[in-house]
């Protein structure tokens, strides 16, 4: 029958099934008796690539094409020829009025992305559909059936939802830098979207063998299960999946073989879990973390839910890593800030115009100005003109050649005090390597330099004094060993003079070369003559003599004492000497050495070195005059010197 062939021909596998079906026993009757209107409509339907179906007759018997057959999955071909109320029983309540509209009113019904809650094979799930139902007129003009075309848009709708959730998550999470707050927001948002009893984020520590549930969002009466759990309790095969990064899907705890071990199932019981979906995060060949959904009823997790959990996991992991890195950075920034604040070194940052952008307290202290009066000002204000030329040149050098410059710089404090800083400075760069400023670490070496200068002067001074002392010794030697003198006598005189000179130095060293009192000096120079009885009366006020005056006076008194012991008052048992001094007119030192009771005095024909030295040395070193007179009672030596030269401290 070419006619029959033609209306089923090209209709694919389902057409063949329709041809082979025993229609005689159905209300549709033998296929040969089908009205032309049904044949035409079915022919269109079978040739369509869109899922298309015919619902014919009073019971809306179900005929469909290949595309619809694949939507039916295992309910095909058993659904063929069945009444609509049976094959669409789970949604018949929704669809029946729509069938009526089409059949009774001959009106088309069109729906776009409409929600149909399906219940198939014991599982309830949301599905979205776009469909149209069109009336097909039969030969008598009444509506014989319905031509339906349907498309399952669930996947598109769900993807849209997931995208929307990911966008919301991203918007929210990226603004949060606190780890706990971030996790709380994340699990709450995912839990709300999925409408499950518990969404939680956990971290795995395979070394320690524990899983820590950091945060949970609960609903449907489930409890928060945050805390630490040993990994082995979760069962071996589940551990393997976690380790390998495979999603764990438990739809019905009671039927899941992986949870058959009572020791494993106990953990799920304790947490009130009937079904679970777990997405692990694997990094560095280890399971690091996981996002899980727990529910207190069995649940056939949809592809959408799994995809959603996967995407959410990835995003939470990423944002959490970011937040932790930020926290670590803040921590290290705080640490460096403390070092910056407490450093004794001078730390400063500036922009490329040499405007100071930050300083540490050490800089503020050195400049003698508060921080806020320094920041925002040019480096120029705090260095010499030459110093600024130098920093400008250094900056140019760094911009052109990179690296660090090291230089000495004169820095001027607010008070005008000039410091010398040793400065190390480097450019700071943005993430593309472009210079954006400079930072400098400096040390104030003013004191060190001053100390070095002092040291240098001291060494020079020491050298000078040593040479001077050698020259003095040379003088003493030359004078002591003048031609014609008895060698033994000369040698003794020389030794005594050296000893007197050494004693003067000793005393000055003891006094730190700041001078010595006249009484001390007198004692040092002539004290030995008083060893057995007091032959020299020493008397006068306390006066500190300058070092030079002190050395000179000791030498002079030594010569006087030696002369007195040899030829003068101290050479006779009854002879005495008075050594006295006073301050006259508040500004002059008057000192007198007066001998009496010695042998008859005669002035020596040729004045010896001793007297020459006394007169000359005292005159020059004390800037005064010394006069030796040979009076009948004994020798008298008078010294008159300005106090300012001899005893500057007393004068001041």
């Amino acid at each position: 029958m070419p006619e029959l062939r033609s209306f089923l021909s090209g209709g694919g596998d389902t057409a063949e099934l329709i041809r082979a079906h025993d229609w005689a026993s159905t209300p549709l009757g033998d296929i040969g008796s089908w009205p032309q209107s049904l044949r035409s409509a079915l022919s269109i339907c079978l040739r369509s690539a869109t899922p298309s179906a015919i619902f014919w007759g009073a019971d809306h018997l179900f005929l469909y094409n290949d595309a619809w057959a694949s939507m039916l999955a295992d309910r095909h071909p058993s659904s063929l020829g069945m009444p609509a109320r049976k094959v669409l029983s789970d949604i018949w309540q929704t669809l029946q009025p729509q069938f009526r509209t089409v059949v009774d009113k001959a009106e088309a019904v069109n729906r776009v992305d409409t929600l149909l809650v399906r219940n198939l094979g014991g599982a309830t799930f949301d599905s979205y559909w776009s469909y149209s139902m069109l009336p097909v007129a039969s030969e008598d003009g009444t509506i014989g059936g319905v031509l339906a075309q349907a498309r399952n848009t669930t996947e598109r709708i769900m993807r849209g939802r997931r995208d929307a959730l990911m966008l919301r998550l991203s918007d929210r999470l990226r603004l949060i830098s606190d780890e706990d707050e971030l996790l709380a927001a994340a699990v709450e948002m995912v839990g709300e979207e999925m409408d499950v009893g518990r969404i939680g984020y956990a971290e795995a520590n395979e070394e320690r063998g524990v899983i820590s549930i950091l945060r949970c969002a609960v609903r449907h009466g489930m409890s928060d299960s945050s805390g630490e759990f040993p990994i082995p309790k979760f069962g071996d095969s589940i551990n393997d999946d976690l380790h390998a990064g495979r999603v764990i899907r438990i739809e019905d705890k009671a039927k899941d073989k992986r949870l058959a071990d009572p020791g494993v199932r106990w953990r799920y019981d304790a947490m009130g879990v009937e079904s679970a979906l777990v997405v692990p995060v694997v990094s560095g060949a280890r399971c690091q973390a996981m996002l899980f959904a727990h529910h207190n009823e069995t649940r056939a997790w949809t592809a959408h839910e799994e995809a959603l959990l996967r995407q959410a996991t990835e995003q939470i992991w990423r944002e959490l890593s970011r937040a932790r890195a930020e926290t670590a950075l803040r921590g290290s920034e705080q640490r460096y800030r403390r070092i910056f604040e407490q450093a004794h070194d001078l730390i400063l940052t500036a922009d490329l115009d040499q405007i100071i952008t930050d300083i540490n307290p050490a800089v503020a202290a050195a400049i003698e100005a508060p921080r806020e009066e320094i920041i925002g000002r040019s480096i120029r204000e705090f260095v010499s003109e030459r110093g600024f030329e130098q920093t400008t040149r250094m900056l140019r050098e760094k911009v052109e050649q990179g690296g660090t410059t090291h230089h000495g710089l004169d820095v001027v404090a607010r008070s005008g005090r000039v410091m010398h800083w040793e400065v190390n400075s480097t450019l700071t760069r943005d993430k593309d390597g472009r210079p954006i400023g400079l930072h400098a670490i400096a040390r104030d070496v003013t004191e060190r330099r001053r100390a070095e200068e002092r040291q240098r002067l001291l060494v020079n001074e020491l050298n000078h004094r040593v040479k001077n002392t050698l020259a003095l010794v040379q003088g003493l030697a030359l004078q002591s060993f003048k031609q014609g003198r008895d060698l033994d006598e000369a040698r003794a005189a020389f030794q005594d003079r050296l000893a007197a000179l050494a004693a003067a130095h000793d005393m000055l060293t003891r006094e730190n070369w700041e001078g010595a009192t006249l009484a001390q000096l007198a004692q040092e120079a002539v004290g030995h003559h008083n060893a057995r009885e007091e032959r020299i009366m020493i008397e006068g006020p306390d006066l500190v003599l300058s070092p030079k005056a002190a050395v000179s006076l000791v030498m002079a008194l030594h010569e006087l004492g030696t002369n007195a012991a040899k030829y003068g008052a101290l050479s006779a048992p009854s002879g005495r000497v008075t050594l006295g001094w006073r301050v006259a007119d508040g500004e002059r030192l008057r000192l007198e050495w007066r001998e009496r009771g010695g042998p008859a005095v005669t002035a020596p024909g040729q004045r010896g070195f001793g007297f020459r030295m006394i007169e000359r040395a005292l005159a020059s070193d004390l800037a005064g005059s010394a006069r030796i007179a040979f009076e009948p009672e004994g020798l008298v030596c008078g010294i008159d010197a300005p106090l300012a030269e001899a005893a500057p401290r007393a004068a001041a």
Partner: protein
Amino acid sequence: MSLEGRRVLIVEDEAIIAMTAEDMLEQIGFTVAGVAASFAEAMAAVERGGFDVALLDINLNGVASHPVAERLQEIGKPFVFATGYGSAGRGGEYENVPLVTKPYRIAALEAAIKLALGQSG
């Protein structure tokens, strides 16, 4: 060049050293025109004149004697620097001024003064 009777002004703050220099100069055959023991005395002595050549200590009681040297150059009197600081401390502008270091050696002193007198013509 005869040294006999040439008059030397000694500028030296240390009396014993000055006396040593005096003795040495006299031994060589000079006449000591005077001894100035301080900067002020030295300036006064230079102005007074009555000497042919000066032996000038670079450091007078801690005061540099350069102004004295300057004055001596101005009036065209030759001079010799004396110092305890080694050969340093003469200053660039006096590079050509003879220098004797303390303690003195009589030969060095004689050579330096001869040189100074020779330079002045």
